[in-house]
């Protein structure tokens, strides 16, 4: 009976923690520490312009990392996000250059992302191949298709009207940041409030048990990869809007940054665990590191080193604190 009363007393706190987990709080502390360090070392680091810059620079990775988080939670991995984005980018771009109306060209880009994701999902869920191998294969395949389609050349000269769509700003924030924020909100709702979110966590947490409990395993997995593909396409649109051109080699190594952001944010590559809030914080941590180190004129070699160390540190802290959360 004491259990019950204790439970009641602890309820408000538990509810708060339910919303904002201990793990996310840890990631937030990490971000605050990193911000403080750069704030002390770099004059003008906290200028509004620079902070907005950080968000803008983080937005593409955050977008991919959100999709990656869902896939990782389902127990999989999507290594093909960069090439998916590239394929989506060159197809949209060449349609735009050819004078196709913007909505149609953008829709085509999303359709490509969706198809790429669906193919990954079907190979994983129905054919039963390992996600790492499947997406390693499609990583090369999609990249090759983008290169073949363009002959290896960039698609240049996107119409200014299209560029304006993704380069605008709203309430003083770049539109790209707002779009990704909305995507993050949707992803959070999906994970916390929908059956699909529960299914993702269950499939990644224990596929066999989820199956016995009637969870539609294949549909859940395919949906995760499809969303990852769609978000890769969204990242592609944002990027070509910003650059005004689409290169077939665009998005090289994007998958690694996305995985890093998800992992820093608390996603477990074993599946069944991950956080939208954490992933966003993880993406901003990576963006902040890059921004701050660049402002300090640190050589890119060392930037790479710092990124690597941040990931390892996050995992070590995870390991040490596990079992208490």
């Amino acid at each position: 009976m004491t259990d019950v009363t204790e439970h009641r007393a602890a309820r408000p706190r538990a509810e708060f923690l339910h919303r904002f987990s201990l793990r996310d709080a840890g990631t937030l502390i990490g971000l605050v520490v990193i911000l403080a360090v750069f704030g002390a070392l770099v004059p003008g680091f906290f200028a509004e312009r620079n902070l907005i810059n950080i968000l803008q620079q983080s937005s593409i990775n955050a977008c991919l990392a959100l999709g990656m988080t869902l896939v990782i939670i389902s127990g999989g991995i999507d290594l093909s996000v960069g090439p998916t984005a590239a394929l989506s980018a060159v197809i949209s771009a060449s349609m735009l250059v050819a004078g196709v109306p913007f909505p149609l060209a953008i829709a085509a880009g999303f359709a490509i992302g969706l198809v790429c994701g669906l193919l990954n999902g079907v190979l994983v869920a129905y054919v039963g191949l390992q996600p790492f191998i499947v997406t390693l294969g499609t990583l090369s395949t999609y990249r090759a298709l983008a290169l073949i389609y363009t002959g290896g050349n960039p698609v240049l000269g996107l119409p200014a009207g299209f560029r304006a769509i993704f380069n605008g700003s709203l309430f003083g924030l770049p539109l790209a940041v707002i779009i990704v924020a909305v995507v993050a909100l949707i992803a959070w709702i999906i994970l916390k409030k929908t059956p699909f979110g529960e299914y993702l966590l269950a499939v990644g947490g224990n596929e066999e048990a989820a199956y016995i409990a009637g969870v539609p395993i294949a549909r859940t997995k395919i949906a995760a990869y499809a969303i990852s593909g769609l978000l890769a396409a969204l990242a592609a649109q944002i990027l070509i809007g910003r650059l005004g051109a689409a290169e077939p080699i665009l998005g090289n190594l994007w998958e690694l940054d996305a995985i890093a952001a998800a992992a820093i944010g608390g996603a477990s590559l074993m599946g069944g665990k991950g956080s939208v809030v954490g992933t966003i914080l993880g993406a901003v941590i990576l963006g902040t590191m890059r921004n701050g180190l660049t402002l300090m004129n640190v050589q890119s070699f060392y930037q790479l080193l710092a990124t690597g160390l941040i990931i390892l540190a996050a995992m070590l802290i995870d390991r040490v604190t596990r079992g208490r959360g």
Partner: protein
Amino acid sequence: MSVARLQFEGISKEFPAVRALRDVSFSVGAGEIHGLLGENGAGKSTLLRILSGVYRPTAGSVLIDGRQVALNNPVAARAAGVAMIHQELQQVPQLSVAQNMFLGHPLTRGGIFVARREQERRAAQALAALDPTIDPAVPLGSLKVAQRQIVEIARALLDRARIVAMDEPTSSLTPSEFERLAEVIAGLARDGVAVVYVSHKLDEVFGICQRATIMRDGVVVETIDLAQVSEKTVVSMMVGRELAQEQHRSHASSEVRLSVRGLASATKVHDVSFDLHRGEVLGIAGLVGSGRTELLRLLAGADRASSGRVEIDGKGVKLPNPRDAIAAGIGLVPEERKREGIVPLRSISSNMALASMGVFAPHGVIDHSRLKRVAAEKMKRVNLRPFLLDRPIRLFSGGNQQKAIIGRWLAAGTRILLFDEPTRGIDVGAKAEIYHLIEELAAEGHSVVVVSSELPEVIRLADRVLVIRDGTVAAELDRADLSEQAIAAHAIPQSETQGRQAQGHWAGA
């Protein structure tokens, strides 16, 4: 037995939040087989982990042959002559038997190359005394669980272990395999090894141990001479109260809820037909491998039937996957809870709601207040303890995990509940609760199928028993005809019945 081979002296172990062991003292003599009994959470596993060097005690000491030993890590424990045989075998199935036996400290030539032949020769020597049919060169994965257990014991012999601790070694053995293992253990004892034997199965402990130490809530209740006490006394010592003997009451109606005709699978189930009534508890008995689990999986939609017809309330149903089976009102409480039952990281509420998401999210978004309400109601119904609905299910005991899985089907409005080994790995107190729950569910009009290897369990629960042999119904026994002998007589293939009596410990649960 002047100096005990193994002596625990005032062992305490504290974890940040809990005190797992308090002042545990008892001793095991050379050549003694000593039972270690207690419910889950009583501290048996913690004590074994201290013995095998995984944990270090907060206070107290371990003495081997009268000398205090520092068991700071598993390697040190092994060097001190302690061998652990785990419940879930810690072996590498892809490697050969010999490689597994020398895992971690291979024999080498010149410190570089593994001396494979020599390893196999010595492995064969160690195995010869136990089970000469095991070939040290074959991959370990090709052996049966019982043989893998023997390999583990042979490994202990190789290490010249003076103390062998066995944690639930028989949880998946058949009766003849258990007998073989019991002989092997007796052999170890004859050679002067001290054996610490942890098991939930009292009849086994009574069968092979001389003395036993009973633990409850981290302390030793008593060390007893098993010849002097009854099983009933032991159980009440373990639980700390008397467990009431329940009388069986049938709630079966004449109304047929589930009708199965000619059900067969591609592999293990051949032509099974039976009816299940409303409010009935139907027991299914049979040896391990007779097709019991496979039959349940067909009914739960987890595997596909190759032929046969299933009707619910007179209407034919198709069960191509669990989702459709659940929609038809069938839910499976699987045997291997960890593998097929729970999603360990998720909360009790989430685990409960998994099978009825459609109910909790009628418009696509989960109604969390409703989910909480239903979870509170169902978990109260199954008497979850501690009553923490947001806590990850992995932190609960096996019995409470099982209650949550039962709650899952209650929330889903399931009318036909299939239990596969409902109390495997569950301690005595929770066992009685699960039995009670099953009976209440039947009384409420649920139809229940219970597959169990423990005959007393089947007899306790079932209104009627189907005995399965070689994938088909060998006999149907009414309540009046139920006895362990009657079930065993039908379950065991004819060639095997001669010369072997039905044992109390049955096809080990």
